């Protein structure tokens, strides 16, 4: 089954991104496909290349990057939400790409299930 995931919150203010990541990982482990993860609202901050969490905490951004690298998961950051918050091509961690909101609607159409994690 193909899942689409919408992440509405940034990496460290809220558990949403962690929950989305755990869900995505479990889905892949069970043989499902993650069609796309779309980052919107403050969720675009999950794509920053400049996050350096303390070494005794989890690295939310690296978790997503590894998922993208290991399983070819499409991580899409909304261009409009990113512009508002200073997330542009130059600030992007590898593994993420910037595109339009249409990618979210397309995920809703193409994926078998769409699930949102947010506040």
């Amino acid at each position: 089954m193909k899942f689409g995931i919408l992440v509405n919150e940034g990496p460290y203010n809220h558990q949403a991104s962690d929950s989305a990541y755990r869900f995505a990982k479990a889905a892949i482990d069970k043989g499902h496909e993650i069609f796309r993860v779309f980052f919107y609202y403050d969720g675009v901050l999950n794509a920053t290349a400049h996050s350096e969490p303390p070494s005794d905490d989890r690295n939310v951004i690296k978790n997503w990057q590894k998922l993208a690298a290991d399983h070819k998961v499409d991580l899409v950051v909304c261009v409009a939400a990113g512009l508002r918050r200073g997330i542009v091509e130059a600030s992007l961690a590898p593994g993420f790409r910037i595109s339009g909101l249409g990618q979210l609607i397309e995920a809703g159409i193409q994926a078998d299930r769409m699930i949102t994690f947010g506040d």
Partner: protein
Amino acid sequence: MAYEVNGKSIEADEEGFLVNINDWNEELAGLVAKDEGVDMTPEHWEVVNFLREYYAEYQIAPAVRVLTKAIAKKMGPDKGNNKYLYELFPYGPGKQACKIAGLPKPTGCV
């Protein structure tokens, strides 16, 4: 970048969209159009003014499809079609006409 109008500098982003939409005036529109290679005729003004009115009423720049339909409704099918609008604004009635009309850069691209 910036536009110079009557000795006043008006700030714009690198693509030529105004930083502050309240800076717009007709003289500036003529200057932006010139930069875009558009020779403003009454037909061009009609669309630009329509866009400004649309923005004043709804606080957004309409999608091309919506603009075309709204123009057809107001000015008839001869003008409310893609061919007519793209002839006036070769780079798109959305992006190019919005820039000349001083509206915010459309960010909601598909």
